């Protein structure tokens, strides 16, 4: 055990004092901050006239719109959208009556207005409305500004004077939705607003992202470390003092700690301030412990696989190429992040939870979203333990044989023979 600790300490110090590591630790948060800052910069430097409260022209050739209602309608539309989001009130565009299409189009070009709607003269029989927007790519045509406000204004104008005030309210806002959650045990609870739901997820989901990153950073360091030891030809010297198993264990500990430190730093720099500013973190102790279990198991699995793979290549680059097979299979759950997030108990989610290579990422995700059935936890932990045992044994065997092969990459048949032998 003493030698394992000596190796772990050496690997940890050697890694965290590397320029590449320090750059990754400091550079990554800066990169993320820069990415986050871009939309803000664009926002503030954009066309102020149309951002504050944009203008949308409406040419009413059918004579159905009551523009006196416009301000009231927009207020209602905004109130309705505000209740489902706490991201700050969204200011919709102001609807303004225009007489002349040419003038409207000229204003559109000069960016005085965001869009121009023409309610055609046969509107009452056909419902025909034309919209003019600047050609700024696909999305400008898909979602023209002021669409929602115009619909509300038309609805209100059409029924004005024909229905009572309460009826008008319902026409403008037919549903005031109260949603309820039914738990697996059949308990009914009022569900929080979307925003509350989102803030509730930030903690667990942030934890999912960070722990997933930690698994890949740390096992990536292990891959690199192993490949470098082989490239530097120090493996044989190390084996004259320690067993392959001790070397593997020491490296797993030391580089795992380096990866965790990196992620802890990210958490400190990025996540904590944003949580403090936006919302209090809501992570239950159970969620945290369970996530740490999956982090530990996931790291052990991928670290062993990476170590075994790292030793196969003659150079770091070659080992990286070989390890891609593990990386890709482990991130498969991220490709189906949507379906798993929507239904965390689906057959797909469960299937991925039971397969060792995909279990860590899938389970970390599911834990962050919902409470996972005990049976799923038991099966996935069991399969991960089996996977880890196989990977550690395999890595140690491959170590012994492959570490002494220099300048030659073993074939698949050779690797399989090593796994059977020794």
């Amino acid at each position: 055990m003493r030698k394992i600790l000596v190796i772990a300490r050496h690997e940890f110090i050697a890694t965290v004092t590397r320029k590449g590591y320090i750059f990754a630790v400091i550079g990554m948060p800066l990169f993320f901050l820069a990415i986050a800052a871009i939309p803000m910069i664009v926002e503030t430097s954009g066309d102020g006239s149309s951002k504050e409260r944009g203008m949308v022209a409406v040419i009413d050739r059918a004579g159905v719109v009551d523009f006196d209602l416009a301000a009231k309608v927009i207020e209602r539309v905004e109130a309705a959208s505000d209740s489902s989001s706490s991201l700050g009130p969204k200011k919709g565009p102001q609807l303004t009556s225009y007489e002349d299409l040419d003038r409207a189009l000229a204003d559109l070009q000069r960016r005085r207005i965001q869009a121009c709607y023409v309610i055609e003269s046969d509107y009452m029989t056909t419902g025909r409305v034309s919209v003019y927007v600047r050609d700024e790519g696909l999305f400008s045509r898909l979602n023209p500004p002021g669409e929602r406000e115009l619909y509300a204004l038309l609805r209100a104008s059409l029924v004005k004077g024909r229905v009572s005030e309460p009826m008008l309210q319902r026409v403008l806002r037919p549903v005031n939705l109260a949603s309820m959650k039914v738990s697996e045990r059949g308990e009914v609870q009022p569900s929080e607003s979307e925003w509350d739901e989102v803030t509730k997820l930030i903690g667990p989901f942030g934890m999912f992202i960070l722990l997933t990153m930690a698994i890949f950073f740390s096992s990536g360091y292990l891959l690199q470390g192993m490949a470098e030891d082989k490239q530097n030809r120090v493996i044989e010297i190390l084996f004259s003092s320690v067993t392959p198993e001790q070397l593997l264990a020491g490296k797993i500990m030391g580089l795992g700690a380096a990866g965790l430190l990196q992620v802890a730093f990210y958490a400190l720099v990025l996540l904590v301030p944003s949580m403090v500013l936006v919302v209090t973190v809501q992570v239950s102790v159970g969620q945290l412990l369970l996530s740490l279990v999956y982090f530990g198991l996931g790291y052990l699995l991928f670290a062993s696989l990476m170590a075994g793979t790292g030793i196969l290549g003659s150079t770091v680059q070659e080992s990286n190429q070989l390890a891609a097979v593990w990386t890709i299979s482990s991130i498969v759950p991220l490709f189906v992040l949507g379906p798993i997030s929507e239904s965390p108990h689906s057959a797909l989610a469960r299937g991925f939870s039971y397969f060792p290579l995909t279990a860590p990422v899938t389970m970390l995700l599911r834990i962050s979203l919902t409470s996972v059935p005990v049976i799923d936890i038991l099966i996935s932990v069991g399969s991960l333990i089996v996977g880890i045992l196989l990977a550690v044994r395999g890595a140690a065997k491959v170590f012994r044989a492959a570490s002494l092969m220099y300048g030659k990459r073993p074939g698949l048949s050779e690797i399989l023979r090593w796994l059977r032998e020794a």
Partner: protein
Amino acid sequence: MTAISLRGVRKSFDSLVAVDDVSLDVERGEVFGLLGPNGAGKTTMIRMIMDIIRPDAGRIEIFGQQLTERVKEQIGYLPEERGLYTRQKVLSVLEYFARLKGATPTRARQSALTWLERLGLMEMKDKKVGELSKGNQQKVQLVATLVGDPEILILDEPFTGLDPVNTRMVSTVIREQAAAGKTVLLSTHQMALVETLCERVFMIHRGRRVLYGHLDEIKRRYSDNAVLVRAAVDYRRCPLIARAVPENGTMRVYLNDDVRPRDFLAWMLQVGAEVESFERATTPLEDIFIKVVQAGEGETDERPEG
């Protein structure tokens, strides 16, 4: 006391038998030469001694016991395929290797500094290994082998790539270690150095033992019945000799089969020759090496006792 003992050791890789039924003993405090042409099985033997690869059959013991972690700590190993952490500082690399040999942090640092001082590398201690010249890297490599203060040194081709100055330095270190009671197993192709350093040798060819024993004894066995003479005498008059060939200012005199060197010396004195020097001619180890290898199949009659 026997430091390293191999009994009936065998190792094959697929159909290739790398080491075939090898037995040998390396005694404590001796410098033992392990010889053989490229691919003969030397490195495989060494790796089996170090438990880096496992033998298919046979028994290997260090100081009378199987290789445990504690026993491993008593061996300093310089492999043929060697390298160091090029991005790390010299002193920290050496401390790390010493600690893996069981030294305490203080002892590891002390030992590393002592050896760096001894080999004139003190100024390099805070440099990265990759920044050193090739010669200095080789020295650091040797220090990495010695820094754990091992009882046994296993050196696989320690002179490869060294200039004459560093070759002499490594030879001196080997001699000093042996004088201090340490055991040295030396695998090398440099026959001249084996002759000056080793007392006993083992030669392997195609996985099998072809020579084993005291160097003097082996050299005698492979020598022609000849003497090296510096004397003023007409050799043609001597009935005891087959022929005489000049060699580096002396005369290599081949005696008839039944004639002993002392008989020839007596004849020279009898005829009143002035003898400046007289010594028994031995065959250089290099010639024996080539002879044995050329003899082919690894099946010679060289199966000395021991």
